[in-house]
């Protein structure tokens, strides 16, 4: 009966949360964004992200004279000396490297770092105690920090992805850049869902554990790294991100196999999830994580 009562109150609660967000979100987002952007480790990550972009430009300036060009309907199309279309080669390079460097590595580290800065630092600086003596629900404390974290994370990774796309595809000229925007949008789509999922999960770690960075790394290696390649990979977030990526590349007409994204079981059967379901699962994971996190915040004693 109590649960039914709680559920019946939900629309009013959501409405109230949305109304209060007008005043609550801007100052919290401003503070969180500031803290994330002045963090030295954030800049180390940005520097790491810029390296492949710089490398892309260096390769372009060193090899742009080796390209073959053909003009069709006023558009310049570039080929390698072997006659292969440069933009087709480069788009696959971009997708592969984005998946390898950004999606599988940097984004996870960034989510661990950001969640730790947003939650754990507030415990250490004792500002969380001030917040807990203020009439703000623990869900709001977490939600606005989480949203600020997602915006910052996706903002940095998104800008990087655009830059990386440009510096990778520059060899294929304007035609190649415009022709393959789908792959950029695919990466951006995966990144936004990755930010939504991992920020929520790591925020929960930051609330419940004193050393969230260590727990986050262990989770990443054991759960998202090891389990995501096994038969029971549907219990990992990586499976759903891979499913979105796999479906999008297939939709672009690329010759890709499920095994390229580890979406097969030990019997070599394809176990990819429908992209829409994958997205819904990720959103549910994030919401559940935020609810668990807000319970943790509410029950935390100082």
């Amino acid at each position, binding site marked *: 009966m109590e649960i039914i009562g709680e559920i019946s109150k939900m629309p009013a609660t959501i409405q109230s949360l949305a109304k*209060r967000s007008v*005043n*609550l979100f*801007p*100052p*919290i987002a401003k*503070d969180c964004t*500031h*803290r994330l952007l*002045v963090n030295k480790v954030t800049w180390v990550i940005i520097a790491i992200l810029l390296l492949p972009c710089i490398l892309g430009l260096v390769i372009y300036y060193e090899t742009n004279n080796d390209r073959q060009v053909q003009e069709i309907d006023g558009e310049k199309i570039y080929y390698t000396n072997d006659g292969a279309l440069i933009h087709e080669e480069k788009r696959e390079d971009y997708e592969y490297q984005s998946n390898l460097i950004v999606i599988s590595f940097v984004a996870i580290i960034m989510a661990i770092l950001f969640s730790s800065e947003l939650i754990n630092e507030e415990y250490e*600086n*004792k*500002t969380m*105690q*001030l*917040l*807990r*003596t*203020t*009439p*703000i*629900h*623990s869900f*709001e404390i977490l939600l606005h920090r989480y949203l600020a974290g997602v915006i910052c994370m996706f903002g940095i990774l998104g800008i990087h992805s655009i830059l990386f796309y440009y510096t990778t595809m520059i060899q294929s000229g304007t035609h190649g850049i415009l022709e393959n925007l789908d792959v950029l949008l695919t990466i951006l789509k995966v990144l936004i869902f990755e930010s939504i999922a991992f920020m929520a999960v790591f925020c929960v770690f930051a609330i419940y554990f004193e050393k969230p960075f260590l727990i986050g790394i262990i989770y990443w290696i054991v759960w998202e790294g090891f389990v995501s390649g096994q038969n029971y990979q549907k219990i990992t977030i990586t499976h759903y991100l891979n499913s979105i990526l796999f479906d999008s590349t297939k939709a672009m007409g690329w010759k890709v196999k499920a095994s390229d994204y580890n979406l097969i079981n030990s019997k070599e059967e394809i176990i990819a999830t429908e992209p829409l379901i994958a997205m819904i699962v990720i959103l549910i994971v994030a919401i559940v994580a935020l609810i668990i996190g807000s319970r943790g915040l*509410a029950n935390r*004693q*100082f």
Partner: protein
Amino acid sequence: MKIKLEQVTKNYGNVQGISNISLDVDSGITGILGPNGAGKSTTMKIILGLSRPSRGRVTVDGKDPFSDWKLKENFGFVPEYDCFYEHMTGLEFVMYFLRIRDIGRDKAENMARTALSELGLNNAMERKIITYSRGMRQKTKVARATVFDPKILIMDEPFQGADPTTRGLLMKKMTEWAKKGKTILISSHILHDVQSLTDNIALVNNGKMLAHGNRHEIRNLINVPRPITIVPVKKGNLRKLAKRIIDEEWTKGTTIDEENNELTVETNQTEEVYLELPRILQKEKITIEKIYSEDDSLDSLYAKLVEGAQWK
């Protein structure tokens, strides 16, 4: 608003924070006194809902402060420790906590400016907190806690690090707020600070409540002779007075300090002394310069309680 602690115990693992504390706090100023580590901050955290009692019950206007987050709209809290977003200015910091109370930007800014100005931070409010002195930080904490006119003000060591001017200003403000009917709870290990603000005190040590109530009443409960010092105008009357007083039933002992021309009478019946003494002085034709009892001070009271004095 009424704060009620009923036999509250708080354990941190095997360490006992506070033990079996009962306390009623009504409007006006109440001081929680005790040395560092006595359990003052733990008591305050439990009242604020930052911590949950291991045993016992705490209520604020009949509600549980740990689970009722809306109750916190009545709380203004000045912590002992520094807890700032150091990159913010004082104005931004106070505004931040107003805005998360769902107050619009312009209104929050006006309120924050007024509160900070009243505490003398007119020129510093737009400087980053990281550049603030301890006194400025203390004022900023107080401004943050009081800007929204809370019904309950809980201040943990509010005078710590404050210069005499700030201390005076804070005391003046607290007296004003108390007159407005707010419930103010102040903790301090500097007894003098609290003594000048209120007679309503709670004395804690080693996590236990030693006494609470009016400090004069508490003193009367302690079964330890209380010194009353009499200073005669003529030095020659010192021994005469001592001789006369020593036979009285209420006298437990006398001490003569010829150098300072003082006679100290130790008694358990203070009221009797104050009633009988004028009669004795009149009969013996002795004029006195002054009569006082330093023992009434909180320092003395506290020392006696902490030393484990016997109770009636």
